[in-house]
């Protein structure tokens, strides 16, 4: 699990953690019932305050991404499979839109773009 914290970002640190853990869940890097590092350990590793990681975990728990077992720790919650897939599709859509915008800015046609997409789709494992 990689979490990268930027101290110069305007985004509060707890939000950076929440966003990145959500992404890891959506991408399937963190799966149901996987144990997360403890609040204190994560704070120590990231060199941030315990309150910050605590707030991040509370937010994730409130939104149903994780659940905590008193005395044991926090685990990844069961995700709604449909919802998860929908979210992943949204990610693909976002990236496609980005590609289309880039293509339009250099006046590639839809056919050209489609050819490219087909080529890469077959190439990438």
């Amino acid at each position, binding site marked *: 699990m990689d979490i990268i914290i930027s101290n110069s970002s305007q985004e509060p640190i707890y939000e950076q953690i929440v966003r990145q853990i959500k992404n890891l869940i959506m991408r399937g890097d963190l799966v149901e019932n996987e144990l997360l590092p403890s609040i204190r*350990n994560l*704070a120590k590793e990231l060199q941030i305050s*315990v*309150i910050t990681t605590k707030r991040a975990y509370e937010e994730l728990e409130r939104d149903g991404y994780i659940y905590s077992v008193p005395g044991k720790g926090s685990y990844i919650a069961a995700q709604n499979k449909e919802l998860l897939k929908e979210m992943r599709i949204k990610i693909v859509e976002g990236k496609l839109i980005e590609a289309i915008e880039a293509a339009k800015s250099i006046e590639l046609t839809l056919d050209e773009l489609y050819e490219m997409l087909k080529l890469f789709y077959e190439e990438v494992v």
Partner: protein
Amino acid sequence: MEHILEINNLNKKFREFELKDLNIKMDKGYIMGFIGPNGAGKSTTIKLIMNLLKKDSGEIKVFGMDNIIHEKEIKNRIGFVMDESHFYEELTVTETKRIISPFYKDWDDKTFNKYLKGFGISPAKRIKELSKGMKMKLSLAIALSHNAQLLIMDEPTSGLDPIVRSELLEILADLIQDENKGVFFSTHITSDLDKIADYITFINEGRIIFSASKDDILEKYGLVKGAKEILDNETKQLFVGIKENKYGFEGLAKDKHEVKKILGEKAVVEKPSLDDIMLYFTRRTLNV
């Protein structure tokens, strides 16, 4: 939950300086940074907690117990590090330990030796042969070797290089892996706290300016830069303090969200450091 440290309406008057109505509450499991400029009252407060000074009025509770009535019991559970070494210069590290350890009920030689080794301090060295950083680490090793639950430190990082300071911060982060322990330390080097402190208590001229979670503080205040023309009597009220220069101004906003709402695109809002916050609060009292 019982507070690991609780100060209620503490007062102490000297001829030219006064601690006025101090209130601090700290929970176990966290690190609290105690900041303020030189002469603000940090050391006086710590000396009052340790009962090295007599208070005029108010209440100090450590582990939920009165700090004078239960002084002995409390001090057995406190690790105390002062800004300067108070060991006998001529004695060796081992001799120093032999003098200090009998004072503590739960002294643990094994832990002490582990810290010495980790810090690279040779037990046979004389105190006077140790560098300033080494002396601080020795103080810390002693403070951590009697199963202390509360670590109180007065300016532990002053005069230390950034490497030793960063090592100290790692030790503190390690310590609070145990959620029953707490750390309270004063410093005027706020960059040490920007990262790991959970709570910040800011004292100036003997009064507490604020005592809150660091995240809330850094979330609330904003460092604002903009053209001087946007400053009028009304917008000036949004700031703790303002510094004007030839080409514009910089100020600390009391509430960055409000400033964003009112000034919008006309000003740049940045995240302040604790240094910025300390600077503007103390500058204001200078200017008025």
